[in-house]
């Protein structure tokens, strides 16, 4: 690896094009390095009807080896966001750095096109195979365009890619003679032709039956295991459960991922509202976040680290009722039922914990607007109370003492 590519300072496309380290290396050992960095990306479209801002200042980092889904309603800006990553469209403001290369600053269209050919594979909903070329020839096309691999080497490499997607038997068939699922697999093989570290897919399963869609997602999982970074736009919620990370875009803004994980029942606009309202609090290991019998004024979502829910009594000492992880929440019992805390919550013993908080008024206002969320939380409250009751009776202090003292 040349020091230039791994340095935090982004290089221009020209540099990337002239550096010896042009061929991207998909390397699992580089997992954790950032693959995509977007800073303050704004996209405004001008039309006769006036200006319309589709992306309102996107900050996003995606790491190597991640398999990321981007979801959002139609018109939320998800495809535009993808176009900013592929360089198919240009941001109005902001910076996009991919694999250490700033792809918009001081770059001509043809330089970017060359960069794209070698660093990016793109897959769309419709399969975009050339109808008059065989699958093998279709897979070889990008190698011709990017002038990568020796002329004689190309068919062999294309064949290997068709084997990877399980289409070697159909290599010499024309696209119309294979199923739509197979066409999409061939399009993925073609996207991988120049061995790009990053694969971008816009609704890749949108036109496929469930079984074919599964095959595509299996393949993406395998590619991600091999170190490829995959960013997929989809509206299919069943796919988001299979990615390693899920990003939601709503009205041109990204939803806080911890909020989305903690409260998946919320409508996107409510998630977005919370994303803007959350405050970050950091507690050192073992630090108390809530004490029993204290009034609780906030809803807490765990962003990083772990918390312990603990009861104390003189006879037994402390009992840890539960440990909560990132994406889980606490404080809801008190906010929903009213009153003081029924247990102590403290930061985990080993590492600091980072929590996001929402003020009581904001939390309650949104709960009133989202009955589904309120209902889901009510169920969780009941379960937690059950656990709590069991633990509390063990520790010799009945819950009733608490309820009697409710204001």
């Amino acid at each position, binding site marked *: 690896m040349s020091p230039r590519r791994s340095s935090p300072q982004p290089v221009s496309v020209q540099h990337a094009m002239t550096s010896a380290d042009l061929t991207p290396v998909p390397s699992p050992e580089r997992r954790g390095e950032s693959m995509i960095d977007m800073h303050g990306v704004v996209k405004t479209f001008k039309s006769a009807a006036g200006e319309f801002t589709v992306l309102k200042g996107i900050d996003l980092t995606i790491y190597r080896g991640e398999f990321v889904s981007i979801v959002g309603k139609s018109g939320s800006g998800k495809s535009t966001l993808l*176009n900013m990553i592929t360089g198919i469209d240009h941001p109005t403001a902001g910076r996009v750095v991919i694999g250490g290369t700033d792809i918009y600053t001081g770059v001509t269209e043809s330089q970017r096109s060359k960069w794209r050919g070698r660093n990016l594979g793109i*897959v769309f909903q419709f399969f*975009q195979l050339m*109808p*008059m070329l065989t699958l093998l020839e279709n897979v070889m096309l990008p190698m011709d365009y990017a002038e990568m691999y020796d002329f004689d080497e190309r068919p062999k490499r294309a064949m290997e890619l068709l084997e990877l997607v399980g289409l070697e038997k159909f290599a010499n068939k*024309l*696209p*119309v003679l294979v199923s739509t699922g197979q066409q999409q697999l061939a399009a993925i093989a073609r996207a991988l032709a120049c061995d790009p570290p990053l694969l971008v897919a816009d609704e890749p399963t949108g036109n496929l039956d469930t079984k074919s869609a599964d095959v595509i997602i299996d393949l993406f999982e395998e590619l991600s295991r091999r170190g490829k970074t995959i960013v997929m736009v989809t509206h299919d919620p069943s796919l988001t459960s299979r990615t390693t990370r899920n990003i939601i875009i709503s009205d041109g803004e990204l939803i806080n991922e911890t909020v989305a994980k903690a409260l998946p029942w919320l409508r996107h606009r409510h998630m977005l509202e919370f994303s803007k309202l959350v405050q970050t609090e950091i507690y050192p290991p073992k630090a108390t976040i809530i004490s029993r019998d204290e009034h609780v004024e906030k809803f807490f979502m765990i962003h990083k680290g772990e918390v312990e829910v603990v009861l104390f009594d003189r006879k037994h000492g402390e009992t840890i009722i539960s440990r909560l992880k990132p994406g889980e929440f606490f404080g809801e019992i008190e906010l929903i039922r009213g009153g003081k805390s029924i247990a102590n919550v403290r930061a985990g013993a080993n590492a600091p914990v980072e929590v996001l908080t929402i003020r009581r008024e904001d939390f309650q206002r949104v709960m009133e607007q989202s009955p589904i969320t309120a209902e889901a939380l009510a169920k969780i409250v009941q379960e937690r109370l059950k656990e709590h009751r069991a633990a509390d009776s063990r520790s010799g202090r009945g819950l009733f003492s608490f309820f009697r003292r409710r204001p």
Partner: protein
Amino acid sequence: MNSNPSSQPIIELRDVVKVYSTAAGDFPALKGINLQVRAGEFLGIIGKSGAGKSTLLNMITGVDHLTEGEVLVHADGSSVSVHRMKEDEIAFWRGRTMGVVFQSFQLLPMLTLVENITLPMDLCGNFHPKRSRERALELLRLMEIEEHADKFPSLISGGQQQRVAIARALANDPPILIADEPTGSLDSVTADHIFELFQRLVEEQGKTIVMVTHDQSLAPRFSRTLRITDGELDQADLAEADLRSGGRRKK
């Protein structure tokens, strides 16, 4: 360019049979098709899904093998028996003789519109690379989409993408255009516009077009319309039959 519609057939199918062998047994998709397409015709073949429309086109383009019969194409001063050519010959011949347009547009997402059109020219070697961009722009102008030449396919509408796909099919100036439900995924206004562009290619450029569709309402707009049902072609001109039965024919 063959500007004179003549009685000379440009495409001839003789007793074409296509049988697919499946686990459930043999399935005859085409049961002995005889068809002559004259140069300068705009032939529409209408049929339901599964009637054999796409299979018929695959026989003409030589994309798929036939079980029995023969397909002859008389174009550019040569006569060719499509299914007697070798694989590599047929691809080259097809590239020069036929342009194909499908329902989904199959533009390459990472190439601009103009690059999508120069691609088949580069592959075929018909035009000098310097000339190919110029020609691509001419074709985009012909399809009324020149202003977007340097955009990427995902930034334009479906109808615009289909116009680019038609321009691409015309890249090597083939005498024959084959179209498989080219308006199938478009709204009716856009579909109408695409259809007019096809009509102009016949009238102004003397192209021969064979189009298959399930859309019965298009029947009066072709210069000849045949119906395909269960792998068999009804030789009566649908639109004329429609006239005789009292239907109106738009002119």
